[in-house]
């Protein structure tokens, strides 16, 4: 099966210097995400996190490559799901906001009302996912439609989903809507072989999810989602095409979820030999290896970056932990912006 990309020259031809810079910078986000999530997982095991913890382990390259190459300041949108710690931060989510949401701090964007990966700052191009998979695609469409109405022509919206999420009706309706409206949407499908415990054979019957693209009349890409360079190249092209008015772009990355579905799940159902498959590689050491190989950073520099990253994470977590929990007596207990129409309680402060 052939994909349109194969015979198309990438739109962005980077100089070696900027290639290095992009790679190293992406690696930085991956490292930050991995470090932060390791910390969150440790807190979870220690009983310090309430609710679920879902990690993006193994998907950092694919996620960061999209998030990083979108331009928040220019009005781009990044709509991440449960495994997009890397992409979210690369796009512009503050580390402290992630920490606060996991820890339920009242200072966080969700103020303890929602938790873990259910977070966002919609006014800054980061919609706050609801759990129902597929539902965010059309929301991003709408944000792009709003920008089109306002004449902001140069924006791109990135939205991510998993192999499982592609089975939802919402995903189909959203992607079709984007295609009809020719919206500048880049959909990143992380085909990580499982939806919870369910293998892809129970999720789709096509050879490659990128085969869906032709049925929507949009461009599809099928790539190795563990290889940072490939991810960077592909998303760079997809974003450029979307930005230049070519409509939605569907990027499918093959990779493996290197964790349980959540931290409560030991993922015994993942056959050991999957780790040996091409998609089973761990993108973080792979990227690090490449950096060393290319001499883009020295071992010492990397060690130093790891240390700094750990410090940043510890600091953010400590700060979030020191912030107040939400206080039920200071809650307004109503759900409307139009306060005088609320039937619930109204804030006392």
């Amino acid at each position, binding site marked *: 099966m052939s994909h349109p990309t194969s015979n198309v020259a990438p739109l962005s031809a980077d100089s070696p210097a900027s290639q290095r810079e992009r790679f190293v910078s992406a690696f930085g986000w991956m490292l930050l995400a991995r470090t932060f999530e390791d910390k969150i997982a440790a807190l979870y095991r220690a009983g310090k996190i309430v609710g679920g913890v879902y990690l993006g382990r193994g998907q950092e390259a694919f996620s960061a490559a999209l998030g990083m190459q979108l331009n928040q300041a220019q009005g781009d949108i990044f709509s991440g799901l449960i495994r997009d710690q890397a992409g979210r931060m690369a796009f512009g989510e503050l580390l402290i906001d992630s920490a606060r949401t996991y820890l339920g701090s009242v200072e966080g964007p969700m103020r303890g009302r929602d938790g873990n990966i259910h977070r966002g700052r919609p006014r800054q191009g980061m919609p706050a996912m609801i759990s129902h998979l597929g539902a965010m695609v059309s929301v991003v469409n709408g944000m792009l439609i709003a920008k089109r109405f306002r004449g902001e022509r140069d924006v791109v919206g990135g939205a991510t989903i998993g192999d499982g999420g592609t089975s939802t009706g919402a995903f189909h309706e959203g992607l079709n809507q984007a295609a009809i409206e020719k919206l500048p949407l880049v959909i990143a499908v992380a085909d990580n072989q499982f939806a919870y415990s369910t293998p892809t054979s129970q999720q789709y019957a096509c050879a490659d999810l990128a085969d869906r693209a032709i049925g929507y009349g949009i461009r599809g890409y099928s790539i190795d989602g563990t290889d940072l360079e490939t991810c960077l190249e592909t998303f760079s092209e997809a974003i450029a095409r979307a930005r230049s008015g070519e409509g939605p772009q569907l990027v499918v990355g093959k990779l493996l979820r290197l964790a349980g579905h959540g931290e409560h799940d030991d993922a015994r159902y993942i056959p050991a030999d999957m780790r040996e498959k091409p998609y089973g590689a761990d993108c973080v050491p792979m990227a690090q290896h490449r950096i060393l190989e290319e001499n883009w950073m020295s071992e010492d520099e990397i060690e130093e970056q790891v240390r700094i990253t750990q410090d940043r994470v510890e600091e953010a977590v400590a700060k979030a932990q020191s912030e107040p929990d939400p206080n039920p007596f200071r809650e307004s207990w109503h759900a*409307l*912006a139009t306060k005088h129409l609320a039937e619930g309680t109204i804030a006392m402060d």
Partner: protein
Amino acid sequence: MAITYLDAIREAQARALEEDESVYIYGQDVAGFGGAFKATKGLAERFPGRVIDAPISEDAIVGSAIGAAIEGMRPIVEMQFADFSSIAFNQIVNQAATHFWRTGVSCPITIRLPSGGTEGSGPFHSQSLESIYAHYPGLIVMTPATVEDAYGMMLEAIRIDDPVIFCEHKLLYYHLKADALPKTILPVGKARIARAGRHATVVACSAMVHEALRAARELAEEGWEIEVVDLRSVKPIDTDTILASVARTGRLLAVGEGFPWGGMTSEIVSRVAAEGFHLLDAPPQRLNSKDTPIPYHPNLWRAHRPTWQSISAAARNLIRL
């Protein structure tokens, strides 16, 4: 010039499009065709690019309206029939309704639901879903019963910063007429005394207000003065106005076109029972449609929903209690 309920809805949308450039309309067949009921007729020509035909994708229609609203637009979504909002249910109750509370960013969308039964429209083109949406925190649910309210509340719905479920009754579209569009309206959230009385209070909304009024005229000939309260919005409910009416009459009958279990009538009756128990001279009563899907055949349909005849009977009963 006679203005119908449907004209009022169209004119309100036109005015909103005129006055606020963040307003746009999205739905199936709303552009060139002007909507299945012609509620958007002519608007696509008057406001080029701002009335957009959607694919048959209710989930994505509402989802995209939410996204646009987050970005500051004020989309009006037309469902072809209220019944099809079941496809957009998740976006409405889990995305739109929770958005402000979760993120602090408001989500000003208006979802128009052509609602209620008409002859021969059957189980899937007749539903009254106000009670379903009112159950969820974060939504405002309007049920205009008059031409004036159809106009004024539609304008309000679009202006309000929260998601509004606008239940417009198909039976009122063409037959209900007023002389002119209103200059002012009662604020949203206030009920209206549609007819004053002293022997019993009938609380209703939408098309049922007119059945109740007709029943009240019928009973007036028998010497009974029925007070009819038009709820106007079922969320919020104006409990004060209802309690004040029950204080005058001592008797309550809540009438709804929806299914009987747990809807608007039970909410009204239980609020009055809890907050106005001492005001009641007789057990508060309810009248709803029957506990089956809505029948196609007119013989069955007329027996399924409350009508002025069954409201009269129930009110007579109540007065005798």
